[in-house]
């Protein structure tokens, strides 16, 4: 249950924002989006993707297309954090769902 609390806290009250250097490059964005895609793919295997991860990925790509790599990297990192939280949720729930069953 404590883990559930921690997860809820993470989910609801935001993922710590990352600070960015003044100018971010395409290469940094590529790396950030690859990491996010990889995590989201893992979440997909667990059938536990979040719509918010998808939204963050989309806005990352949109910002990159507009040349705003600062925002693009920030959004990609947010997507990665969300995808990782969804993976953590799936694993934690897999171990604990039975405790919620009505007895």
């Amino acid at each position, binding site marked *: 249950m404590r883990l559930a609390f921690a997860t*809820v806290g993470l989910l609801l009250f935001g993922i710590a924002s990352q600070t960015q250097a003044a100018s971010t490059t395409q290469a940094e964005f590529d790396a950030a989006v690859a990491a996010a895609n990889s995590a989201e793919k893992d979440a997909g295997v667990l059938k536990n993707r979040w719509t918010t991860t998808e939204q963050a990925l989309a806005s990352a790509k949109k910002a990159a297309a507009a040349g705003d790599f600062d925002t693009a990297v920030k959004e990609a990192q947010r997507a990665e954090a969300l995808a990782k939280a969804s993976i953590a949720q799936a694993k934690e729930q*897999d171990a604990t769902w*039975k405790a919620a069953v009505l007895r």
Partner: protein
Amino acid sequence: MLRIIVILIAASFVAAPGVAGATDAANPDADFKAFRDYFTKRFPNVPLTDFVNGPYSMDSGLRKQWEAIEDFPPYDFAVDHGKEMFATPFKNGKTYGDCFPNKGIGVRQNYPYFDVKAGEVVTLELALNRCREANGETPFSYVKDEMASLTAYMAFTSRGKAFDIKIPDDPRALAAYENGERYFYTRRGQLNFSCASCHVQSAGQHIRTEVLAPALGILNAMPIYRSEWGSMGTISRRFVTCNSQVRGVPLEPQDENYRDVEYFLSYMANGLPVSGPGARP
């Protein structure tokens, strides 16, 4: 939205069930009793068979509007459309009725069932599309329109019949049931809600003016005409929208998990009457 989150999270802790051994094997009979006891004790004034009327079983203001709508319900068009489709042969001359016991009339209460040959749960929606494919027709979208009309007609001809879901003596059937149970109680989406968070722990509570439907009997009313949608929706549609509402990416309609959770929930509703098609806010 934040208020909803707070309510649901608070509710989920208040009503957190007792810790049970995580290694317990699935026990459908014990689950059935516990599930029923939970709802009948929590809502002692709701007659058991009234749970199939969802939010209308627990709010008199809503019930009055529903009764006005039931005078001439908007799902009538879907029922008639479904009836017409049942009467219209496929290109090969066969009909939907040929795919079902008793020509598909009055059989809704027996779905989903576990197909021991194929080793999987077969829902009514899946059976309908397989019927189409077996007769050389393209399958319909699972979420609305024709599929909703067909299931509306089949439910209508089965009104009042008690759900009769069986778990055959086959370890794969029990595994499907348990997977459905797991899916029902597993929290998902960014909001971290399970099906149970809303429809067990918070059943009957108001979210703005809406009343969360109790999980007990929730599928008996399907398919439903939702005023919010302005159209009919199937069981598939309900699962998909539930997932999105908790900010989870929905699975494909008729994904094994959806079929299994339908199997689990329908088993919990055994003995309760078919009330579909239904009208909902």
